[in-house]
């Protein structure tokens, strides 16, 4: 488990990191928590020539309340997000999801920005960010821009990031106490990544669902917003029948993944089961 030789640079600002990315292109990789990158390097699946360490950049770490949204620094660890009072109150789907990632050691090192940049199709964050209707703020050679979480994930280990762009922060709309959230996950027994992860954020008036955002991870080669389930919930009084009817629409028309642990057929089935579980948990 020895990686190929590489150079290491500890960046002191995002601008510096962007400059290095621009200079080195594909040969450079951003290092934050290292929990996806380092194992890949040790297995020599990834052999960057330069690591640009952004973990020391203070600007990337805080969680800020900007009125209508929370701005979560890209280098915030899963653990910091799970235990943040602001996130638990104003964007609870993120805190709920963070608590299911890996184990304590991983949550204390791995970062949200690192995870979404890596874009593992079975990672937990993508479903939560899509359900939360978050946007991703990035900075690159071409300046700063934001990308909707729904558009960010483009394939297996693939995102809308340009080669020289660094994730700066995740912007998450704050939700009021009329919103309810849940993340239900059927995990792969070895890696504990999601075979199916379903994130649900709904605005409720008693039993009536005003609006709903349902998103999946693990089911296909990238996380996705499930339009059909979401619209089947919105504008309905939620009861056994309406919940089951909505869940039955889960992951329709999606190219489902199949592997040693879960065939395509089983994943499709689990998507329905976990949609129902997430919805029920949200309103429990």
């Amino acid at each position, binding site marked *: *488990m020895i990686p190929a030789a590489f150079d290491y640079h500890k960046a002191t600002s995002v601008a510096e990191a962007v400059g290095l990315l621009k200079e080195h292109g594909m040969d450079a990789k951003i290092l934050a928590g290292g929990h996806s990158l380092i194992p890949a390097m040790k297995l*020599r699946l990834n052999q960057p020539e330069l690591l640009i360490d952004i973990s020391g950049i203070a600007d990337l770490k805080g969680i800020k309340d900007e009125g209508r949204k929370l701005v979560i620094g890209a280098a915030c660890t899963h653990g910091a997000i799970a235990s943040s009072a602001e996130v638990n109150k104003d964007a609870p789907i993120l805190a709920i999801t963070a608590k299911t990632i890996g184990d304590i050691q991983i949550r204390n090192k791995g970062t949200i920005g690192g995870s979404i940049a890596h874009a593992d199709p079975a990672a937990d964050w993508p479903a939560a960010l899509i359900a939360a209707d978050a946007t991703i703020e990035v900075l690159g050679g071409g300046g700063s821009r934001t990308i909707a979480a729904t558009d960010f994930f483009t394939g297996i280990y693939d995102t809308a990031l340009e080669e020289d762009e660094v994730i700066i922060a995740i912007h998450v709309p704050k939700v009021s106490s009329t919103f309810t959230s849940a993340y239900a996950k*059927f995990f*792969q*027994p*070895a*890696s504990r990544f999601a075979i199916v992860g379903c994130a649900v954020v709904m605005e409720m008036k008693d039993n009536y669902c005003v609006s709903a955002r349902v998103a999946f991870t693990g089911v296909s080669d990238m996380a996705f917003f499930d339009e059909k389930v979401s619209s089947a919930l919105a504008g309905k009084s939620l009861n056994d029948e309406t919940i089951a009817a909505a869940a039955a629409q889960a992951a329709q028309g999606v190219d489902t993944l199949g592997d*040693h642990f*879960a065939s395509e057929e*089983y994943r499709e089935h689990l998507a329905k089961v976990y949609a129902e579980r997430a919805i029920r948990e949200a309103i429990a």
Partner: protein
Amino acid sequence: MTKMIGKSVKRVEDKRFITGKGQYTDDIILPNMTYAQFVRSPYAHAKVLGVDTSEALAHPGVVAVYTGADFAEINGVPCGWQVDFKNGDTMKEPKHPLIVVDKARHAGDAVAIVIAESREAARDAADLVDVDYEELEAVVDPKKAAEEGAPLVHDDVPNNICFDWELGNPKEEVDAAIAAASHVTTLEFANQRVAPNAIEPRSYIGDYDSTNDKYTLYTSTQNPHLIRLLMCAFVLGIPEHKVRIVSKDVGGGFGSKIFHYTEEALVTYISKQLGRPVKWTAERSEAFLTDAHGRDHVSKAEMGFDAEGKITGLRIKTYASMGGYLSTFAPAVPTYLHGTLLQGVYTTPKIHIDVVATFTHTSAVDAYRGAGRPEATYLLERLMDTAALEMEMDPAELRFKNFIPAFNGIDEPGYATNVALQYDSGNYAPVLERALEMTGYKDFRKEQAEARANGKLLGIGFSTYIEACGIAPSAVVGALGARAGLFEVSQVRVHPTGKVSVFTGAHSHGQGHETTFAQVVADKFGIPMEDVDIVHGDSDTVAFGMGTYGSRSLAVGGSALVKSIEKIIDKGTKIAAHKLEAAEEDLEFAEGKWTVKGTDKSIGFADISLTAYVPHDYPAGLEPGLDFSSFYDPANFTYPFGAHIAIVEVDKDTGKVSLKRFIAVDDVGNVINPMIVDGQIHGGVVQGIGQALLEHAFYDEDGQLVTGSYMDYAMPRADDVPMIETDRTTTPCPHNPLGVKGAGEAGAIGSTPAVVNAVMDALAPYGIKNLSMPLTSESVWRAMKG
């Protein structure tokens, strides 16, 4: 200090382990050391047409690169157990070369070895070795391997059959018993291959000292002296007295570190070639590909019953994989460690087993926690619960009906089985009675009925196992094909000040011998445990030993220890008699001193040891010193037994199995340290649960190990397992001085069928009777779906 035997003393070795101060092989750094990296075949079966090492040799820091041709004149690693074909022919024993010469026979087979100044340089250069392969078709299933036309692993082994073998009553008698049975339960399944997953990967350093023409091999082995014997006498042809084996701290083995591996011989040999130490430590991925795996049987099992539910006959046919090459004890596992256990705890009058051992394009298969006995127990216990279901009998009642009646092996004889063994002592009903009581069995069945009425799938499963430990009487295993004796050795050295060093041939790689053995010594001598040091794992200090496996350390090594302790006390009594001016028979030794019976005249342990080394006033004709060695060859195996009960719930929607409770009542004979025994049971139970529900070293049809990392190989985690509820009964072993039977494997033997039986009980409403392990969520869901 009075009674140390039976006390839950905290493990003395844990301080260094927990604080990271253990000294494992990879922690050892020798001056001028080089590092080895293997180039391993990516194919399960491929001709090696050429190996170009020129680019690797030119890489900075590379010292040497060797290929198979460099070792063509050297023997392969030997097999330590010979099983003959039914027709009397010797088993097929193809050469297991140190490095592949003609073709690779499993993914991970070594094709070249790179030696460099650093691990990094060795790793980088390994990528530069250019191997020209011609990929060939592979076979990975032990039964399919024997079919006509299957790809051959070794060209000179027809149908890939290493040997065939049978044991038990005459086949026609068993056939007749089953034909006449009023009910026959039949099951066909695989006992899937699992990877051993010791936390410390294998690690070796060869260090040749040209000044003294002496080799040192630092090795993460369970078995230092046997490795020396095999490597010196059978592989490298170097004099045994010129080799020192050091295996101090070893991080787990579960069987996989018993065997002599090619890499041990290579680092030793190359160290002499280069005149420098050579270190190799397996990467985790290499461990998955090259450690000897466990299990991998495909069996058909049939059990006949009379109308009352008494077992009338048992017939087994098993195909067992040997992997690509024969590992050290591989042939013994599906035969003499498996077929011999098919009596179980039942009075089955007719038993026959037929085994076909085959080569497949996979990593070698050898002993893994339990070694054959879990596979036998799995057959029996799955049959029992399935038969109970089919005959509409209670599975616990069915067992009570068939248990062998109690016998203590002292004034009642041992129990002679139909499959070559003589059980030492046993009392099988009380363990199940106690387990049922702990479970609250009657209430459980009510709870289950209610759960079913509410659409919940709750199930209970049983396993009443027996195993054979304390391997073994040398004459017996010799007759069965072992190419080694299986005695054990101890040396007890009392220093002048009364402090004690014990040298044991048993080997601790997590079992806690430094505590348990010290407890025995402290108890017998009546001295503080702190005054006792246990030394193992160094062939220059420990006279000889057969290592640790098969739950043998205390039963065999502990017995050897007691023999030396007794010799010390006998000699001490002679010295004490002289000093106290009394007759030896008038002395008694207790609490660390010799006392003239009925008087207050006494002399302490340290006074006697000092006298032994300063023999000024000393018995005439008696040798000075207080230091004895003993060899102990057991009279029989030991036979621990127990009852395990699992309660599970199956998620109707997903098929996911949750283990709700696990009850283990074991009888391991007398217990020296209850805490350590509990720990062994807990660890074993969890390992068995892992096999039932999670673990699978899964090769696809091309011979690629799909589950070759922890991203894919599912090990049980703490939250997969409930609190394990344990209790014990005590039926002492009648033939060893401590009355101990061994506890290392019991958990792994009993637990697996209990869990699978529980899942089948939960699924009974669906009419599902048989699923292959591991019981993954998808496989259970598919079965429910029909």
